């Protein structure tokens, strides 16, 4: 059964230095507030796992939380580079970061295998790609019936996965809908799972009996964080703040400007202040 607790407490309990951590969200429902709380708590040596590390991982990497990144596409969607990630990779600032680089298909299959309790995933991929050359975690398995050689990657098994969802009921059952990415898989693949939600409701009222619902007993903590996915979006609650994504490009290009932005928008804003979870929309230069 999931505990419904403040975000600070959930991060304190389930995120530790050295952990393998997945904050998932495929453009939609990105758990920004949770990532910023991890930054405030000063976690270090994290292995960050995510198909599409975007602004929140750029912030965590820029603040030195991570020693390794497992990913398949690291950019600012529709805008360009993640400058803090690039600075870490290209110049080791603020610390070097090890990369384990995959394709989306590989990561999606690896999360699926993790959720299914399998040790690896087989798929038809990496055909002729140099990624095989630089990533020793890309292997081959042979179909015992046809002899076809398929790519294989290890299952992803995070210590803790964190996602943001639209709502939970009072028992801690969680519903998410819209673009759901690999969030269900990330939660089910992890030892512990934290879900931040827009709201707690009496009745989850799934729109369909087959809606994406995560039972409370498959989750450790639910935290009420309205706006906790901003500047990404929560389908049915608020839109994506595209301006904030564009603005991040200039903020993140310069180390000092980045640090002062973090100081103002993350460190001066406790997670328990609901408004603080939406700093981008309040404060970003336009």
């Amino acid at each position, binding site marked *: 059964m999931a505990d419904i607790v403040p975000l600070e407490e959930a991060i304190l309990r389930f995120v530790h230095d050295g952990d393998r951590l997945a904050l998932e969200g*495929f*453009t*939609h429902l990105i758990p920004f507030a949770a990532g910023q709380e991890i930054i405030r708590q000063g976690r270090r040596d994290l292995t960050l796992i995510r*198909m*599409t590390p975007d602004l929140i991982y750029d912030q965590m990497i820029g603040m030195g939380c991570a020693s390794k990144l497992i*990913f*398949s*596409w*690291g*950019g600012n*969607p*529709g*805008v360009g*580079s*993640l400058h803090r*990630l*690039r600075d870490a*990779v*290209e110049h080791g600032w603020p610390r070097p970061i090890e990369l384990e*680089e*995959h*394709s*989306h*298909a590989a990561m*999606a*299959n690896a*999360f*699926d295998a993790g959720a299914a309790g399998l040790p690896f995933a087989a*798929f*038809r*991929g*990496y*055909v*002729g*790609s*140099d*990624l095989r050359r*630089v990533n020793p975690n890309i292997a081959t398995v042979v179909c015992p019936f046809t002899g076809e*050689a398929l790519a294989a990657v290890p299952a992803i098994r995070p210590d803790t996965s964190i996602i943001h969802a639209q709502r939970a009921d009072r028992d801690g059952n969680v519903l998410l809908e*819209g*673009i*759901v*990415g*690999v969030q*269900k*898989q990330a939660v089910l693949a992890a030892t512990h799972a934290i879900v931040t939600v827009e709201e707690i409701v009496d009745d989850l009222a799934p729109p369909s009996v087959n809606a*994406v619902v995560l039972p409370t007993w498959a989750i450790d903590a639910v935290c009420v964080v309205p706006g906790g996915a901003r500047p990404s*979006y929560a*389908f049915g609650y608020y*839109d*994506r*703040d*595209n*301006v904030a*994504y564009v603005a991040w490009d200039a903020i993140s290009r310069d180390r000092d400007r980045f640090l002062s932005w973090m100081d103002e928008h993350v460190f001066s804003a406790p997670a328990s202040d609901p408004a603080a979870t939406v700093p981008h929309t309040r404060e970003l230069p336009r």
Partner: protein
Amino acid sequence: MTAPAWTAAEMMTIAASRQLAPDDVCFVGIGAPSAACNLARLLHAPDIVLVYESGTIGTRPDVLPLSIGDGELCSTALTTVSVPEMFRYWLQAGRITKGFLGGAQIDRYGNINTTVIGPYDRPRVRLPGGGGAPEIASSCDEVLVTATHAPRTLVDRVEFVTSLGHGRGPGDRRAAGSTTVGPTTLITDLCVMSVDAAREFVVESLHVGVTRREVVEATGWPVRFVSDLVSTPAPTDEELTTLRDLQARTERAHAAR
């Protein structure tokens, strides 16, 4: 000659949209491909199926998305599936007829680099990475490539093969284990190239006002031209109006947020 009444980027998008047939199922990337695919849908291919890697199938956005997972893609889709399902049941299973790719470096064989410039371990420029591209390149029936024409983009040899095109020529793709056709067409802001028997992109049509010399100077390999080189048909009024309306709607929508 006088400047044409359209931009090079508009010409590229329109030329790309013409590559799409009404019964295509397209795996759409952000940027030029998204504009081209939706333009085709608004013009000659109303029933074209647009699939975005975020899981949206049969999406009909009124405005172009800024990201691959905008809410607009989901709310106008026939259905939205998980990302593992998208890559397993829809892409890997061979249900996509045309995939669009771009990249920081593209060579004459359609090999694409979106990973790194310089050595992998000590990169000069760390690019975003492969994302969906390695398997889009191998699983779609056919791959269309779009790029802004420049020597640093259309290079003699990509420094890192993120996504396989035709390797170093005939037979390489099959030898690597691929059973699909691979890149067939490269659409740039200067011309349209198609793959010849040597599995190399050669220019088959020049956009209005573009010279052979401009293309040669903007291409990082000794580019060849087909013997029956033609001029890309100029954008029609309908194409231009539809594209500009789409982009104006898009700008208004994104500025409002």
